[in-house]
Every structure is written in C-alpha cells, then in structure tokens.
C-alpha cells in the first residue's frame, strides 16, 4: 500500500510517501511495524495522540482495519481555515 506523510511527520521521516509491503491488520499494527524500522520512524510515531490518520483518504482511528486498503496517511492535527 501507499503510505503518505504530511507536515512535520513528513519532515521527521524525510519522505512524502512510500510503498510499504505489510500484512498489518490495523493502522496501529502498521505503526508498530514502522516504528521498528529506524530511529526517524520511532521519532515521528512516538506520540500517537499528536497524530491523525486517514485510510483511503477518509479520517479514521488507529484501530481501523487495513484489509483491501490502498492508501494510509499520517499527519498532525489539521490547521485549515
């Protein structure tokens, strides 16, 4: 699936998007996998209360299932308007 990062999450991880091969059942499982990769992921995901997640471009929760999902995005709380 495609994993996208925005704002300071993108800056901490260092890339805007990447392809990830995973069998993670939920967003939280995917986060756990990513955190094990490298220090920069661990840093970006150290406080999940500071993060929001969208699955296939819809806001959701970290316990959302990932079956059949094409795109997951991580970002800080939004500041539009």
């Amino acid at each position, binding site marked *: 699936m495609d994993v996208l990062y925005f704002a300071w999450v993108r800056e901490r991880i260092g890339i805007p998007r990447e392809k990830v091969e995973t069998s993670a059942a939920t967003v939280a499982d995917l986060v756990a996998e990513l955190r094990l990769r490298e220090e920069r992921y661990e840093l970006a995901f150290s406080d999940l209360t500071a993060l929001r997640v969208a699955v296939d471009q*819809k*806001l959701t929760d970290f316990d959302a299932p990932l079956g059949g999902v094409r795109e997951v995005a991580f*970002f800080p*709380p*939004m*500041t*539009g*308007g």
Partner: protein
Amino acid sequence: MRVVVQEQPFDIGAETTTFAAGHKEMGAIVTFTGIVRDLPDDPLQAMEIEHYPGMTEAALTEIAQTAIDRWALGDALVIHRYGRLVPGEMIMMVATASKHRKDAFEAAEYLMDYLKSRAPFWKREITDAGESWVSSKAEDEDALTRW
C-alpha cells in the same frame, strides 16, 4: 455546490457576484474570508500551506454537503488556497445562500469550524525568528461540539 482548492489568488468580489447570481429564491448570502494575519511581535514573512490532494477536495465536499442538507441551503461555496502566502493575502472563503439570514450565518460558521480542524491543511509560519508548524488549538476542536 462548488469546492475549489487552488494555489493562485481568488477574486472575492467576482466569486461573490457569481455565487449570488441565479438564486432568486434565496434572500440571504453570507460570505466569510480568511486573511493571512501578521504577527505583532515576530513579523511574518510568509505562511506556507500544505494539503492532501484528493482528500482535501473530498473532505471539503462532504463538509459543504452536510451544511447544505442541515440548513436547507440553496448553495454553498468553499475556496481554499495552498502554497506560499504573505500577510494580507486571502487564504480562503466560504459563501452560503439560504432563504433567511440565520441559516446562512449558522451554516457559514459550521463550514468554518469544520474547515479549521477536519480539512487536511497544515500551516507553517515563516518569521525572522525561524519557521514553525502552526499547532492546532483545543478551542478549534471544542468548537465542533456545539454542532
């Protein structure tokens, strides 16, 4: 309904005129415009707005449709810019059309409250002192509870 996400400036006069035309049965048009505000203690050089192409349009459309349904609006318009803006520039506007003003005002406030914290935009301030991401405010999240 019209939802526009663009980098270039928009003409609020032309947009409002176009929006208001063709709604003879609507007695009230409310518009709100957001402006890049300078910072008194640390002058702002620019504000950079990042967004999530695809999701942004979908989220704005859903928010606008909810407002149209809830307040029986004749129409709604949302324009939101991204990219690099300087103080005084218009960031975004919403417009609502309804039979009577109360619904148009309320729906415009609803749109603004949801745009603040449910549309995937992120603001970054560039000042003489440095650059920083704008933090979301608890009051913006609290504002959603009244709806």
